[in-house]
């Protein structure tokens, strides 16, 4: 650190007589030294190193078996099921959530009550019960018909053909997800300033345009982090789809664990690492989506990690240059 002589220098380190003295104009302030912080940092680093060392060397984790299982078809098939179920349910759940939120805000007391009841019901009934019920639904109602309510049917479906395990899983998770998404979307819409609704109404913008182009884009700013939270929960709740005889990532790992009981721990680690990867991927997407919806909400956009790294490098170089010059 360059240390301009003068005010910031303590008595103990009084400048030597032969130090050339510079004019005190525009002096840089010497930052306060914080020894406590350095000690804490060192202690944390030691603990982290110990944890990593333990992870790497403890035979309990059986890393060779971890390597064997990590890319096994049985595990990857499960991962694919997890991704498929989570992606479809996330999209359908969000769509359902938007519809429910709109119904809840609508002027019709019936729509509003139905939306409220739906949310209440699906937030109360355990997902497991929803899945078990849906799974056995096809056995209880053999066919589904489209037609006049309580009247003749035009089209009749054989339900056991429609309701594959995947369909049942996606429908179950979407029904559940929509209830939570509805509240997230509603919260987002409520977070949009009343003045925005008024301005859109005063300009005579068509109703659909008001929602899709004015309210929703602003609501998405607060919807995004909340919904991503939901999404990560959703990725993990796919582990319940074994209730509809579908083996997701966690289900495959559990099944393999019973066939290969010696590998239970490495199998659990395989699932953990995959979930870490999925969550990280979602977080990266979240960062950029949030950045996109932050347009106009802040005066300057937050820097991307790449921009941050570049800025950090530039700052380091500049500092090195200064130090070299002293």
């Amino acid at each position: 650190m360059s240390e301009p002589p003068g005010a910031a220098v303590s008595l103990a380190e009084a400048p030597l007589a032969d130090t050339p003295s510079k004019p005190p104009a525009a002096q840089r302030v010497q930052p306060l030294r914080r020894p406590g912080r350095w000690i804490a940092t060192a202690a944390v680093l030691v603990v982290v190193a110990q944890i990593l060392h333990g992870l790497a060397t403890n035979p309990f984790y059986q890393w060779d078996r971890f390597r064997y299982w990590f890319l096994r078809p049985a595990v990857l098939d499960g991962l694919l099921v997890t991704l498929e179920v989570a992606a479809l349910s996330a999209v359908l759940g969000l769509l359902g959530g938007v519809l429910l939120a709109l119904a809840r805000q609508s002027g019709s007391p019936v729509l509003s009550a139905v939306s409220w009841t739906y949310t209440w019901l699906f937030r109360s009934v355990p997902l497991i019960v929803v899945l078990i019920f849906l799974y056995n639904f096809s056995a209880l109602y053999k066919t589904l018909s489209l037609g006049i309510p309580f009247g003749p049917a035009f089209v009749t479906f054989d339900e056991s053909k429609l309701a594959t395990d995947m369909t049942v899983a996606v429908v179950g998770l979407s029904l559940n997800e929509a209830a939570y998404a509805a509240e997230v979307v509603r919260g987002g819409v409520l977070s949009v300033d009343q003045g925005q609704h008024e301005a859109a109404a005063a300009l005579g913008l068509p109703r659909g345009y008001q929602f899709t182009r004015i309210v929703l884009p602003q609501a998405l700013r607060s919807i995004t982090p909340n919904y991503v939270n939901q999404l990560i929960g959703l990725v993990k709740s796919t582990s319940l789809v074994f209730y509809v005889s579908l083996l997701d990532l966690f289900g495959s790992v559990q099944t393999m664990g019973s066939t290969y009981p010696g590998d239970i721990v490495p199998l659990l680690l395989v699932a953990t690492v995959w979930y870490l990867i999925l969550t990280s991927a979602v977080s990266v997407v979240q960062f950029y989506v949030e950045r996109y919806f932050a347009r106009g909400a802040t005066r300057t956009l937050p820097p991307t990690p790449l921009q941050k790294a570049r800025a950090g490098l530039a700052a380091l170089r500049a500092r090195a240059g200064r130090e070299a010059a002293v």
Partner: protein
Amino acid sequence: MPTQLSRRSLIRGITAATAVATLATGLAACGGDSDAATTTDTAGTVTVGRVSNGAARQTALKVSEVKSISAELPAAVRRSGTLKIVVGALPDGFPPLAYIGGDQKTLTGAEPDFGRLVAAVLGLKPQVSNATWENMFVGIDSGKADVGFANITDTEERKKKYDFASYRKDNVGFEVLKKSTWNFDGRYENLAGRTVAVDNGTNQEKILLEWQAKLKKEGKTLTVKHYASKNATYLALTGGRIDAYFAANPGVAYHVAQTAGSPDPTRSAGTFSGAGASLQGLIAATTKKDSGLAEPIADAVNHLIRSGQYARWLAAYHLSDEAVTTSQVNPPGLPLGNS
């Protein structure tokens, strides 16, 4: 292993969900196949012990339809030509009885294999599906499946809703860490001061709780633990949280063999008869009450016993100790009020 299904609460939940059932309409079918065991047997042959991951000797058994028995089948089942067998082995299987085999995708094990033998005698095409323990029962209730072969114990409670055709007894045993010095010598006093895990609602749980009561009278303790899954139980065993796991012996034998090369190998610390002095536990094929399936299945099992295929099936899975001499329809089961 069989955990007691709280059936009534399940049905209540299902009734509550009925209100929203109609929302499930209109969704296009997506891909995804249910994992029925695929067999490539030629007519008249049933191969048992396939991809068993070391649990069994693969054995081809000659079995063909017995018209006099298949004639007893309910007309609807005979017309469909298939026997829908359900196995409650999700998400964790219970090897060697029902589990995903060594190819890491096929449902195998002594139970589905026996189901296929029975189907062959009945002249039906077996269609084996895997489900959770709860869904297995709900599936039988709703007609999604005809019969469950899944190490289901015959109990009086279950008899209220199901008909049984018994086919096996079970031995139980203690599994401990290899480094443990404890052994079960056949006397319950041996367990004083120990912590033992057992599965909910099982035959062996009843035995263990009886021993616990006896020890208590003598002023000694036996701590009994329950875990949500087999995997969780084994983690507790390797982690030293429990001294032993009291479970069906075939599972113990399989687990001991499988963990031999792992950092925490286990061993068997003694067995006990599941059909002990006061209790007669029987494993039975489970069908919906009054479906008319239990009788032909019992006759088919008896046919397999007489023809010697039954003994060969048990031998393939090293389960000969659990043989019964005859299959009975709705034999006396574990009495009510035992949980």
